[in-house]
């Protein structure tokens, strides 16, 4: 599904990703952990195609196609979704209108007609219920005045509506209380299927109690330096990252 090879990316001339390799197969959930500044958010932004980052080397292959040069909206149409760590506010555009525009843009790219208002309403209602979002919420301006938890629930709501092939959750757990965390995780788990995958970027092991990963990667200084199962996440939670740094030093 996703193959990242020797990926190097920089912003304003400063290299952040320094030869990153990652392969995600259909149906898998991968967790990416790492200390601040390791390049976690850069990784998600580069996969999504944010052009403030420059890819200097390496390839991103998605479903057999190199997507390095694709515009972010084209990547989205192909099924890549990113849940933002800091979702932006768009005043005057309601949650409903935004998701409508998003759904219909994707359909247009696939050569399909817009959903009828009835179909759209049904879809939105169903997914909103799953995220425990009420009607009032749906008619608020996008992310304006939302609490941290509401913002993240809205991200996962959009994901549930769009049903992406690859979902990247960029620190979706930050700022969530335990109830919101459960709702969000539930939304993600509901989407699980043999042909969908997810990359979960997080600081904390706590989210992984709810969204159980097949693999845990440690991202450090722009590279993936260690890969393991869920137990690796537990160890990181317990011991921090210093032992990884020690190991790296010893190996060098």
């Amino acid at each position, binding site marked *: 599904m996703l193959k990242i090879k020797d990926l190097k990316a920089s912003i304003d001339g400063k290299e952040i990703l320094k030869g990153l390799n990652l392969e995600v197969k259909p149906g898998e959930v991968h967790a990416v952990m790492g200390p601040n500044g390791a390049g976690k958010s850069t990784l998600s932004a580069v996969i*999504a*195609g*944010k*052009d*403030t980052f420059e890819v200097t080397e390496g390839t991103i292959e998605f479903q057999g196609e190199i997507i390095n040069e694709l*515009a*972010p*909206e084209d*990547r*989205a*149409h192909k099924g890549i*979704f*990113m849940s*933002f760590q800091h*979702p*932006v506010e*768009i*005043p*005057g*555009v309601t949650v409903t*209108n*935004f998701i409508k*525009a*998003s759904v219909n*843009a*994707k359909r247009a*790219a696939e050569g399909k007609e817009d959903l009828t208002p009835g179909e759209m309403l049904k879809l939105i209602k169903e997914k909103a219920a799953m995220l425990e979002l009420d009607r009032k919420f749906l008619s608020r*301006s*996008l992310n304006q005045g939302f609490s941290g938890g509401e913002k993240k629930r809205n991200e996962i709501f*959009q994901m549930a509506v*769009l049903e992406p092939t690859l979902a990247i959750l960029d620190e979706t757990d930050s700022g969530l209380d335990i109830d919101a965390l459960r709702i969000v995780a539930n939304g993600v788990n509901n989407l699980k299927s043999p042909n969908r995958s997810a990359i979960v970027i997080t600081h904390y092991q706590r989210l992984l109690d709810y969204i159980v990963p097949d693999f845990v990667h440690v991202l450090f200084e722009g590279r993936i330096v260690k890969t393991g199962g869920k137990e690796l996440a537990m160890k990181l939670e317990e011991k921090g990252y210093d032992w990884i740094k020690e190991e790296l030093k010893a190996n060098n």
Partner: protein
Amino acid sequence: MAKKEEGKVIDELTSSEYKYGFVTEIESDTFAKGLSEDVIKAISAKKEEPEWLLEWRLNAYKAWKTMEEPNWAHVDYPTPDFQDISYYSAPKPKPELESLDEVDPELLDTFSRLGISLDEQKRLSGVAVAVDIVMDSVSVKTTFKDTLAKKGIIFMSISEAIKEHPELVRKHLGSVVPVKDNFYSALNSAVFTDGSFCYIPEGVLCPMELSTYFRINESGTGQFERTLVIADKGARVSYLEGCTAPQRDENQLHAAVVELIALEDAEIKYSTVQNWYPGSKEGKGGVFNFVTKRAVAEKNAKISWTQVETGSAVTWKYPSTVLKGDGAIGEFYSIAVTNNFQQADTGTKMIHLGNNTKSTIISKGISAGKSQNSYRGLVKIAPNAKNARNFSQCDSLLMGDTCGAHTFPYIEAKNSSSHIEHEATTSKISEDQLFYCNQRGIDTEKAVALIVNGFGKEVLNKLPMEFAVEAQKLLEISLEGSVG
């Protein structure tokens, strides 16, 4: 978005063509250029006007000659050569229409290209809208006149009203905007040729939207229309005007006067979708839109101005309300979009004379390209106006870094019991907003349209429903290719 990309998107957006720039090949009866007493007499004679009106015009002309073109607005343009304009142009022959069959097919075609139906059977989105069509200097057709007449509503061109209801016209013409109010109102009073007249009798709620569509067609002409709307006690009416003009390299002058009178408990909602030719991308041509619009609201009456301004090379316009009676309400909702080299200086005046009067001003300015967009507004509370309240909100949205947004709020509160609030914001469409939309599959152009419509929502929501969708599309077209 990276700089390079931003430039590309701006280019694309600004490259969209003005849809209404065509010219109708129709024979016209057009006066030679120039302005003099003789020209005014000729206009008056052509329109078979009564003596009092000719006198009124000539007095206005005398006053105008002593006045100077205003230069205080934040706009920069060459002073029009008033002797290089033709002051009367009418599609020939002046149609005396009984049914559609008698309308010149060229005209029918023109208005169908503009999306205006002259056919009373064809209703816009299922809702009946009565339309008065003004092409260059004359009204060519008013629909639904008979239906309205049954309710006692008078809706016709002002030329007809002068003949059929001289007492009403004479009483109210110039009562809200005095002849000498300003340079352009004086000019308009001297040379106005047509416009709409509307009277809603006491207690009548107008059953349909009334609308006037203004079209400039001939080159070298100016359009000086005059609109007068009177809502008698307890009457209610919603009125909409739309405007377009062909694409020309010359600047054309449009100097209108609109007067609204809302008697006790009456309500007038006046909406404008202004889409005069804005000039080329390089700033060549376009309409100079110098308009005086004012309303008087008597006791407990309500005036609501809504405007969507996307056209014209230069706009100078302040739809205002005199809150004369106690408890009167004035509202002003505006979206002004400027792109390329357009300049707009627009806003409102709320003059509080009565007690417990209330006004609301919501102004949304969107500037792109190399345009300049100014809000200018006055809130004035007279010494005797107790407990007057005003709320003003002026938001500006900038696209790119070569345009300008300016806010000039003036507040004169002479009564200490008044309560005035003013809020202003300036924002830009951020790269993060665009990337967020892109990531959700929405391309940059659509994202801009979405964000702009969101920005203007409070105002768009005030438009009659049939026109809200139209206005949204217009915003998108005006900004096509404009952002970063």
